[in-house]
């Protein structure tokens, strides 16, 4: 509506002044973007877009909120196939191989022309670029990026006799502290769980953390091989199973991604693993003392990165691509990245964001905001393969089958690996 009225005003003013050419010289860009964690993220994006348009009156951005990551891809691809395409979009960082197979996106290396632009392309944290690179080129520029972090309830740690500044750093500690944090009520039912790791929504993502902590990865960089049935990977799933079945520090069965944050805020669990994208909401809503820490490790620390990258579409004019690049540069500039990070909890995408006054002051008053960044040194890429949707589902189904006790971790993962191999054979 705002955009429409703005457009009408522009057209109106232009026609009064007889400047019809001025209006047609503006470049219009359509962009789809997803929000995966809820909250008022759309307002923040709109605010940033407005600022860009104020600075660049010759470019109009039509930013369309398109649901979760899956929906955003569906809508952007549908728009591409119809006559009214989008010129750029924020989409899942792991969509890269499929978008390339569809010949939908262009490499940023082919768009940057000046030294300053090349420098910009090299200014991001390398760990965040892992999911954006293929065949030696950069196809996705990091924007709403996250890692999984551990949120914990410091009040509960105190009540259980644990040091609230010493959250668990290893798998053993996670279990032993979890046991102390699990409280049963008078009738034997659990009132307070030690920990919760969500197993719906994005189970493969949580599992990516556990496997990395066990020094394994789930796939190769080219996205043509998966390693679901390696012993270290199976062991990681068995550990996840044990948290509920053997150690009893986590509810058995599925733990819902969508309601987990509310569980944590309602203090039914002492620890949750969740996206950093929840940080600002948790900060605003928690009426208890909470902390944020890196995930615990086994052989090493680890978390996959996650979230959305900017992509620029092939089907757009040279002029539109130039304008799109300008917009992406603006959105990922130090000042904007800092503002975005502070408002949402997603991380600043490059070191320069953390050198701004905005984030420096914020980190001083709220140190947890730095955890996601500090964890980047232990980060690995998120599961991204060819036919990513299918391969991801094989793994998701296997994880859920194992966690609900329908099959053993080994059987489930061996099955998923076989199915993934069958699909990926064509892409080698």
């Amino acid at each position, binding site marked *: 509506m705002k955009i429409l009225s703005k457009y009408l005003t522009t057209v109106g003013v232009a026609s009064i002044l007889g400047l019809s050419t001025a209006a047609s010289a503006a470049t219009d860009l359509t962009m789809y973007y997803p929000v995966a964690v809820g909250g008022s993220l759309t307002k923040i994006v709109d605010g940033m877009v407005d600022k860009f348009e104020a600075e660049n009156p010759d470019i109009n951005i039509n930013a369309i909120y398109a649901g979760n990551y*899956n929906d955003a891809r569906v809508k952007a691809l549908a728009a591409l*196939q119809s006559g009214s395409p989008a010129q750029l979009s924020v989409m899942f960082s792991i969509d890269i191989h499929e978008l390339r*197979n569809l010949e939908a996106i262009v490499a940023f290396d082919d768009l940057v022309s000046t030294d300053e632009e090349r420098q910009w392309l090299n200014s991001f944290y390398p760990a965040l670029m892992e999911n954006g690179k293929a065949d030696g080129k950069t196809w996705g520029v990091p924007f709403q990026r996250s890692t999984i972090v551990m949120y914990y309830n410091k009040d509960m740690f105190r009540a259980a006799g644990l040091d609230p500044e010493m959250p668990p750093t290893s798998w053993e500690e996670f279990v032993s502290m979890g046991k102390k944090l699990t409280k049963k009520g008078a*009738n034997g039912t659990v009132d307070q769980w030690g920990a919760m790791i969500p197993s719906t929504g994005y189970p493969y993502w949580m599992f990516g953390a556990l496997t990395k902590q066990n020094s394994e990865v789930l796939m190769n960089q080219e996205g043509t091989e998966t390693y679901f049935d390696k012993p270290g990977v199976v062991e990681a799933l068995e550990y996840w199973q044990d948290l509920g079945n053997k150690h009893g520090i986590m509810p058995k069965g599925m*733990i819902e991604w*969508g309601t987990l944050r509310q569980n944590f805020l*309602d203090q039914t669990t002492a620890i949750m693993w969740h996206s950093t994208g929840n940080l600002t909401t948790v900060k605003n809503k928690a009426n208890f003392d909470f902390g944020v820490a890196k995930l615990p490790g086994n052989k090493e620390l680890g978390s996959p990165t996650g979230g959305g990258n900017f992509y620029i579409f092939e089907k757009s004019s040279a002029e539109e691509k130039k304008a799109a690049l300008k917009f992406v540069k603006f959105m990922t500039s130090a000042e904007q990245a800092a503002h975005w990070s502070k408002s949402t909890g997603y991380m600043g995408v490059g070191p320069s964001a953390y050198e701004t006054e905005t984030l420096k002051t914020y980190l001083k008053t709220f140190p947890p905001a730095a955890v996601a960044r500090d964890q980047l040194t232990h980060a690995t890429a998120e599961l991204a393969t060819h036919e990513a*949707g299918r391969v991801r589902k094989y793994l998701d189904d296997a994880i859920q089958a194992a966690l609900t006790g*329908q099959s053993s971790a080994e059987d489930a993962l061996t099955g998923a690996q076989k199915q993934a191999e069958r699909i990926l054979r064509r892409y080698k």
Partner: protein
Amino acid sequence: MHNRFNLKAWLLLLPALSFLIAFTHWPTLKSIWRSFTWARSDVAPSQFVGLENYQLLLDDPVFWKVFENNFWYAVGTVPTSIALAIMMALWVNSKIRGTSLLRLAFFTPTILPMITVANIWLFFYSPQIGLFNQLLALVGIEGPNWLGDPDLALSSLMVMTVWKEAGFFMIFYLAALQTLSPELYAAAKLEGASAWRIFRKITFPLLMPTTLFVLINAILNAFKLVDHLFILTKGGPNNESNLLLYYIYETAFSFLDSYYAATLTVVMLATLAVIALVQMLLLDRKIHYR
């Protein structure tokens, strides 16, 4: 004269017909054609592969799972919501005070969009903080993980669906009840028939046209309505609550395999067509129309 009238009729039908053809019949034909072709990706040219996609479908355990789930989902939701709808309609049709409030109360779930309902029920079903388990906790029972337990997930979806649908069907029954002639009931009373006998011999048979209509709609909805899956379970855990249409959506938009999605769509269309035909042929003869 006759010819001109025909032309006029066709012209009047044209707007509706062109929409039907453009958005129903043409896509249907295209889906059927597509189910016999395959291509590496959406940008590559497709080729005719005969029945290969259907062969894949027969070998696909997830397809059989969602088909079976959909069967039980229909069996679980359709009769229950129809029975509830009749009971509610009879109740709010009786001459007691406050029936309009009651009608509104029964109809409310229908007014709410499915996505909204699912978001509310997601929190009802939530194991630790959810309404249901908190109520159970009051009487000392540890409630189950409604959506996360493979044995319960589909049933939990069914309960919500019945709650959502029954009020809608009630409206049709209520409308039908109000057209029934009071003389029949007066006569039955004179004969000293019991309430149950009146229902069985008069009300229920006279409601049969409505029941057929509702039955067809309810079964179609059991296949058509999957909005809540997006919010509640996404078909999980491990496809235990996955339904055919949601699997089609996943295949088309998450796996980006429009060819296999078309194949699944054809199977779904055929299933629905067969069900509708059987209903019409079997039930239509037994129904009393005035």
